[in-house]
């Protein structure tokens, strides 16, 4: 059983295009996240949603728009893709376990912008 899944796993596209990445979790968690991992493997939070509501939006260009149709899904739409958007994007979900907010990560989506 896949806990946090993302589609697609790989995405290659041209500059200027619009693309979406989908994320689904079957863990019953209330909170979901999007992280970006750059070419140097640095992971940084982009967005956090709790019960379909945005609760954090780090300094991310407004070309990136998260959408949460329900508690189990958090999709990421990117407009006018740029070369610098090439990265691995990870979705995660979390719950409180024993007083600790434990996050579970998806397998990642490798986005390459040409």
């Amino acid at each position, binding site marked *: 059983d896949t806990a*946090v899944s993302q589609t697609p796993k790989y995405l290659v596209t041209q500059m200027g295009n619009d693309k979406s990445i989908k994320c689904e979790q079957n863990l019953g968690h209330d*909170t979901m*996240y999007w992280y970006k991992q750059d070419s*140097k*493997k*640095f*992971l*940084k*939070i982009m967005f*956090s949603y*709790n019960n379909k509501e945005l*609760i*954090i939006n780090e300094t991310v260009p407004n070309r990136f728009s998260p959408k949460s149709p329900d508690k189990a899904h958090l999709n990421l739409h990117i407009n006018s893709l740029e070369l610098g958007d090439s990265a691995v994007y*990870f979705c995660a979900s*979390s719950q409180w376990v*024993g*007083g*600790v*907010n*434990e*996050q*579970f*990560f*998806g*397998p*990642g989506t490798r986005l390459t912008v040409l």
Partner: protein
Amino acid sequence: AQSVTQPDIHITVSEGASLELRCNYSYGATPYLFWYVQSPGQGLQLLLKYFSGDTLVQGIKGFEAEFKRSQSSFNLRKPSVHWSDAAEYFCAVGEAAGANNLFFGTGTRLTVIP
């Protein structure tokens, strides 16, 4: 502001040797601390976590970590490394409230030689 430092970018150890990966954090309150492992082309898997209580925590795959408040450290250890442990290791500090985001270090790449 929260931050995590992993001083070692790359470590090489022989199979069967012991391992210690360093992690230092900066956080204003009692931290939630995590170690994640990322195998090539894979997502992040939680190895272990610390919130309170015993400062020596046990994780999966034979890993352990020790929280030392006086040194702001949370180093990961394993007494005998296996070839399958070759991966990227990330230390992270979690927020105790609010968005509960994770702030990651830059990672340490572990190479295991026969």
